């Protein structure tokens, strides 16, 4: 027993995830950026004729946003593939056929426990730069290989989300479907999986946010995206005081994109916790 039991009505403190707090953090990051700028220019006034940090960032903003769009694109494509692939692998983990079940289990646990960067390198180095389909030569650009690498890692996580959701549906649902002469496949797709969607949505959104924040890894394997643009800015200006503001700027962008997803996820989780 605790010495002083808290009032049962007092809600348990929960991690902050409100819009207000998010907006506050975004403002704080932007303020930090501004402070840095002010401090840097006060400490070491820009040489005559050299543009201010703010001006440089402003000039590069279109390029930065274009780079960010590449990250968003890679994340969306990866999420799509990972969702489709992961759904089938997750279902496969519960297959009645032992070889299917075993293969899907292997895929899931092999790639779920592999560092994403390692998978990215594998895909970069193992996939050909083009494939020949009959008379056609289809090139495989680097970003497609990157999507493949991220998709495999994310699909392994998706597989576990799907398996967990299916197993959380009471066996009575399978039994009543069976006693109405539904086949196992019909029961899965018409009765069990539709009930899983609601349960899978919050973890799925979590996974998407994870995919998004992992996309800068693509820069390491040579895909142009926001980190490439950042490197370009630094190379073009050759100024040490630019280093922190540029990366802080990227931080703010990712935060503004991913944080709303986190808020929405928590809201859905709470809603489903009540609705059951």
């Amino acid at each position, binding site marked *: 027993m605790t010495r002083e039991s808290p009032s049962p009505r007092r809600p348990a403190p929960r991690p902050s995830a409100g819009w207000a707090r998010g907006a506050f953090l975004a403002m704080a990051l932007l303020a930090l950026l501004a402070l840095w700028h002010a401090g840097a220019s006060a400490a070491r006034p820009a040489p005559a004729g050299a543009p201010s940090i703010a001006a440089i960032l402003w000039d590069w903003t279109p390029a930065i946003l274009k780079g960010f769009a590449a990250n968003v694109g890679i994340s969306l494509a990866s999420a799509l593939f990972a969702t489709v692939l992961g759904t089938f692998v997750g279902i496969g983990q519960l297959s009645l056929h032992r070889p299917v079940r075993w293969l899907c289990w292997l895929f899931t646990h092999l790639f779920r426990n592999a560092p994403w960067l390692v998978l990215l390198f594998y895909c970069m180095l193992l996939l050909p730069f083009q494939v020949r389909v009959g008379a056609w030569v289809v090139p495989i650009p680097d970003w497609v290989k990157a999507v493949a690498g991220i998709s495999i890692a994310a699909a392994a996580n998706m597989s576990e989300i799907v398996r967990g959701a299916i197993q959380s549906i009471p066996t009575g649902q399978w039994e009543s479907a*069976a*006693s*109405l*002469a539904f*086949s196992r496949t019909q029961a899965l797709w018409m009765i069990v999986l539709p009930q899983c969607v609601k349960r899978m949505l919050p973890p799925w959104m979590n996974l998407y946010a994870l995919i998004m924040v992992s996309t800068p890894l693509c820069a390491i394997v040579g895909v142009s995206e926001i980190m490439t643009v950042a490197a370009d800015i630094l190379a073009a200006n050759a100024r040490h005081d630019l280093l922190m503001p540029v990366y802080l700027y990227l931080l703010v962008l990712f935060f503004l994109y991913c944080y709303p997803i986190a808020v929405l996820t928590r809201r859905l989780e709470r809603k489903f916790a009540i609705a059951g």
Partner: protein
Amino acid sequence: MSTHSVAAPASASDDFIIQCRDVRKSFKGVEVLKGMSLDVRKGDVVCIIGPSGSGKSTFLRCLNGLVPVDGGTVVAAGHAVHDPGVDKLALRRRVGMVFQQYNLFPHRTVLQNVMMAPVHVLRQKRAEVERRARALIRKVRLHGKEDAYPGELSGGQQQRVAIARSLAMNPDVMLFDEVTAALDPETVGEVLVTIKELAAEGMTCILVTHEMGFAREVADCIYFTDGGLIVESGPPAAFFSQPKDPRTRAFLERVL
């Protein structure tokens, strides 16, 4: 379609819809059914009663193949259920089942719950199925609840939807697995009335139940199970007034 799942040899057994001989089933080395035999004629109402853990629910599940039997024979609606190659889907089109926990599909409305199997399993025309489904919902006295979701209904109402859903397949025989055990006392009656009406219309019903008054009133035959065996059976009047076996007497003394 399996060639094994043909009708039982035609003989005097023609009007039996269920025939079980020496049904055995073990779970993890524990023998739950130790050789149960039971025959049910078309149109009969059979109640299986007995203490918890006596194997009555397991036995009921053997009849539509939800639980595969280890030994003995089960022939239901012309299908050899004990045969591993039995066409389970064909069997279950003829044998309906209602569960203790209703097991309605929570993401579908009442009407959709009733319509799903005829539309997707029997591939009947949607308009015709809907007409029949609405009639069935009226029959179980849930007119006006067609668009409600199961979560919005009381236990008794949900159980009546489950009965309508099963009836929509036009089964030859209905299995009821302790369908009133999870209900509030005040809603037990409405479900029993629905089953009674079904029985009066000539539907073959096999019930596992703890409702002794209901069993006495509606059943054509009562089976008493204990320890995985059928200890005693007979028409309700004789069964309740002159139980022969000491185990039956002890059980009836406890529950009546």
